[in-house]
């Protein structure tokens, strides 16, 4: 008879052991999901009402690029028609006021301007530029130079149209003719690396939207009469409450955040 009692005690003991094991099994599973790498950061960002599209995890390659000062704009300025153009030697920039301002609306401005810049008598080397919604504002339409290695987001290779009262009245142009590769290719940080890193450094506030994340070359420094460009991630963040838009720049080689507000004027130590 005692044997039966032992059986009952064993049953109770094993039953409670099962409950304990089951609970700890569930706990450990929860731990797995919370440690799974960057996805947790992404989930945390979504929880804090930061919205963004899918993030690319691919790491690519990029170069150090260099360009020499170039006077192509000055040499070809006589080709321009129906505008008053002035060339400035110091910045190698061309500033031009249009004789007939172009009327635009927010719906058709890209189409109209794309067509306008294609004609050589309107804008020199216009075919080499591409519209950049990330850099454009209400009062400025920005086109950036599109090179074989990628786009250049920099004041040394830009076409900036000034908009006033629904009309494009003037533009400022800078131009880089050719770029040379200065060093063998190097791996760069992926979009996901950069954005999770920005978040980890408290650069992305809660309740905001990442509107753009683009990789482009920008000026690092000038040395020996040449300009050196490096790949940089330009991440634009829009605060959903205040509607304030800020653009963060991250060195794509090192992943370091470049602390400067103006585009293209970062000095060497910003690396």
């Amino acid at each position, binding site marked *: 008879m005692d044997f039966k009692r032992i*059986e009952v005690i064993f049953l109770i003991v*094993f039953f409670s*052991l099962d409950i304990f094991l089951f609970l700890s*099994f569930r706990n*450990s599973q929860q731990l797995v999901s919370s*440690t*799974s790498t*960057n996805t947790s950061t992404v989930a945390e960002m979504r929880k804090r009402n930061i919205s963004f599209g899918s993030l690319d995890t691919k790491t690519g390659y990029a170069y150090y690029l260099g360009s020499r000062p170039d006077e192509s704009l000055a040499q070809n300025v006589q080709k321009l028609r129906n505008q008053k153009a002035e060339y400035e030697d110091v910045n190698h920039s061309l500033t031009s006021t249009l004789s007939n301002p172009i009327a635009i609306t927010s719906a058709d401005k890209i189409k109209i301007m794309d067509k306008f810049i294609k004609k050589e008598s309107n804008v020199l080397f216009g075919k080499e530029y591409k519209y950049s919604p990330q850099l454009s504002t209400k009062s400025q339409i920005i086109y950036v130079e599109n090179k074989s290695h990628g786009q250049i987001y920099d004041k040394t290779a830009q076409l900036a149209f000034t908009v006033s009262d629904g009309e494009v009245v003037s533009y400022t142009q800078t131009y880089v003719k050719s770029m040379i590769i200065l060093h063998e*290719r190097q791996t760069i940080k992926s979009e996901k690396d950069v954005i999770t890193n920005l978040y980890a450094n408290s650069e992305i506030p809660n309740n905001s939207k990442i509107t753009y994340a683009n990789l482009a070359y920008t000026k690092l420094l000038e040395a*020996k009469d040449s300009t050196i460009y490096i790949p940089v991630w330009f991440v634009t963040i829009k605060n959903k409450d205040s509607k304030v838009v800020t653009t963060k720049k991250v060195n794509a080689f090192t992943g370091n955040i470049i602390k400067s507000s103006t585009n293209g004027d970062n000095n060497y130590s910003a690396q």
Partner: protein
Amino acid sequence: MKFSRLIVQLLLVVAVITSIVLSFFIWTNTARYQRGQNIDVSSTEANKNEIPMNQVISPTSVIWHDSTDQHLIYNSNENISISIQKIMQDWKINSPKLVSKKNGAYYQKLIQSKDTIQMVYPTAITTGTLGYLLDNNSLKNEKSDQFNRILINLKNKNDQNIYLANDNNYAVYKAKVKNASSEPITKLVKKANINLRVRLNLMKHGVFTFYVDPIKLKTYSYVISGKQDGEYTTALFDSNTNGLVTSEDNGVYTYNYGESKRLVSDHNTEELTFEDYTDTSVPKTQLAFLQRGYQKIINLQNSVSNLRLYNANWKEKDLVFREYVEGFPIFKKSQFGSIRIKFSRKGSTEHFLNKVLEVPVPSDQASTRLKSTTEIFKGLQNVGYSPNDVQALEVGYQWESETDNEKVVDLKPTYYIKIDGHWKPYDEWTNESAEEE
């Protein structure tokens, strides 16, 4: 009565089985949980701005032997040896078997074999280290056979092997390779934009790369960077720098952290020496030796993308790293390269220069045309150094500071020659230029 007892027994059996099953799940699950953590660690490491170890310890020159001649090749847009290493990561490499040892004739024949690409490390590493760098499990557990050349035949379909060769004792190992194709490597070879005809010759002090014709090499310019002593002390001492004792004597600054660590910074030569008397363990394996050296250099410098392991002396536990440009080493005004690390029971020592190549800049200087290597040996003989006196000879870049711009240096190619344990450029040995007239 009997029936209820049967139920209790049945339930007991079920409860025991459930507990066993659950225990099994928890065991396997914990393993998964730990693996998950490992992934986490490696991803945070990758996020730090680190150059991977297999770039710092990688072959620096690639020699391609087509059906007639040997060529030193390089692609200034894409590093060929790093790309080949990436390709090799997918190969299945069996454990290497010794083919021959101390047989100079066989060795010469092997390193001159046709349709073969060879990648040359500046110093010998072990097969186990190669397994670690390629993340190849079967090589990882290999015993420590040393080699400094990897040879791959790209044409012979019957030879499914790679050969590992060691210049120091003419040992040759053969390892069977599966899952490999020569096609991607052939493509990389075709893309090379620097191509110099060479011949590998066995001499008294080892294998010498002879440039058959005069060679034309580019001049490079770089922006250099340095750090303040304070940045080094924060990185090298523990973050708490309260106990720091500083003294200065003729531009030589000494920082002591108690009795355990010391940094000496010579502001005249910009050479620094760091001694850590707490780091008294000596690495037990070659791999640990190189790993610890690698950890130390990434702790010292932010930008190690040009840095390569130049010499590993296992006996003396001494490592030398040098900066490279387009496959050629850079010789600075110091005898130790860029960084020298030594481990000993008394503590570790790090010698380094506070001048690092940071950003490449277009050079405004014309290319340099250097004499052929035979001419160089003739020149040395004229001043009394026989070919047997020459311990090593290498084309390298000389570091020339610009007087008007101290942030920029020019790198000019020349021949560097090691005689009596000292590296000097050719013109310092002979008073004669290495350039072609």
